[in-house]
């Protein structure tokens, strides 16, 4: 497996780094969660066998696209290269990370922040939207992941 830069462009086909975790709509992607058919609570990643709400014994779930915008709860960055199974660009490029609150689902979801946006550009409460970006590529394909991106009109 080669370790090419995430920023490198290529014509390789793109595949999700985690199959079934998000839609592959490169314009307006959604994370794919699930919703309990009994109590209505949401899960990400998907829950499909039993509901974790102690007042609910639900065992059936619908796959649902989660809200693709939310507000920054907090943020940080990764100054050091994470260990495997992270596959880093060479040389390593630090990246920002945001925890984003989804209003409808009332949950906070982590993700890297899009390349080029540093912690200095982030604030709690900022509106973010979900985008897809290459996490790494191997010989066959570009592996896409979800990332958070500040909404343009701020």
């Amino acid at each position, binding site marked *: 497996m080669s370790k090419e830069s995430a920023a490198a462009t290529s014509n390789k086909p793109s595949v999700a*780094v*985690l*199959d079934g975790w998000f839609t592959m709509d490169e314009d307006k992607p959604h994370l794919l969660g699930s919703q309990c058919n009994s*109590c*209505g*609570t*949401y*899960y*990400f*990643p998907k829950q499909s066998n039993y509901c*974790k*709400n*102690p*007042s609910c014994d639900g065992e059936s779930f619908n796959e649902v696209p989660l809200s693709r915008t939310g507000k920054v*709860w*907090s*943020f*940080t*960055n*990764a*100054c*050091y290269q*994470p*260990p*495997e*199974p*992270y596959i880093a660009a060479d040389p390593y490029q630090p*990246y920002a*990370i945001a*925890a984003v609150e989804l209003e*409808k*689902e*009332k*949950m*906070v*979801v*982590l*993700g*890297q922040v899009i390349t080029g946006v540093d*912690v200095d550009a982030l*604030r*709690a*409460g900022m509106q973010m939207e979900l985008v897809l970006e290459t*996490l790494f590529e191997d010989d066959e394909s570009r592996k896409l*992941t979800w990332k958070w991106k500040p909404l343009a009109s701020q």
Partner: protein
Amino acid sequence: MSNEIAILGAGMHPWGKWGKNFTEYGVKAARDALADAGVDWRDVGFVSGAATMRCGYPGYVAGATFAQALGWQGAEVNTSYAACASGSQALAAARAKILSGACDVALVVGADTTPKGFLAPQKGERPDDPDWVRFRLGITNPTYFALYARRRMEIYGDTQDDFALVKVKNAEHGFSNPNARYKKKFSAEDVAASAMVADPLRLMDICATSDGGAALVVSSVGYAKKIGRGDAVKVAAISTVTPSYASGIIEMPDLATDSAAVVEAQSFRAALPKKAYEEAGVAPGDVDVAEVYDLSTALELDWMEDLQLCERGEAAQLVRAGQTRVGGRLPINPSGGLACFGEAVPAQALSQVCELTWQLRGEAGARQVEGAKVGITANQGLFGHGSSVILKR
């Protein structure tokens, strides 16, 4: 109170990177605790070990491993695993045994040898393992502590200088502690000059992993009186509650919180001491000293608020005013905390209780909190494990 037990002895093996078998640390701590208690090893009826997951089968059956190392003498054994709360869970098992009348004296031991460097997940493609997934996506352990720290800065106006003050204060406390690993009086400039790991946290804001061992000899209050130790420090409460759904704070190794769409969000950290206060019949205002799990400098501030030792958002003010130093109104981590020890998982919760035992006896030397009568510990680990222990004199 009828559910109290007495702490007759406390002992520790100094924290460090000694590279020895964990059993050696546990035996040293146990022998020191027995000597401190003035109890013969043959009089111990129950050995309660805190498991280590990094040292193979002997670590999984730590209670038996320590009992065998000390010399089989027929005592019953038990081993507890509850991540960072393993030591408290082992103490709770000893308390249950004593309060049920099944034994008079128990020995509680936790010890660990830690590997060097990053704790990385197992190899291979394992998308069903949350730990594998988060590392694949670039979310490491410091990420979570940095998110909590940055949240404080954004909501309460805390600064990186405030976090550095916590490190400077803990370094001062640990300087005279013979069991601490790092004994150096770091300055705010030292902290600021250390490398950024996960903004806003620098290397010196984050605790290391260490080798170490801690042990307690505990007994029924009746036994303590019988051997002339009726004035021993008492365990007044042990809380090892699990979280309540829906957890509103992002927790390692998760990529998302629970959804609070149909159930109100809950704080696990705040729930841990709440149960302990209720059990001990003690109010937060009664606390003289606290040992809290400062995995990061900023997390010490979160704990102060979760322990209700101040209002939400006010912890940094107490630190700035010097009130959390030994000599201040409410000393936090007089031992030096994880900042000076580094984490030795199965020993850490017990080391907190050892420190409070010495504090409440007035035997803590240069780091003594004058007149301390009530102390509380707090820690939280993975998978819904955490604990809070209250000691009284």
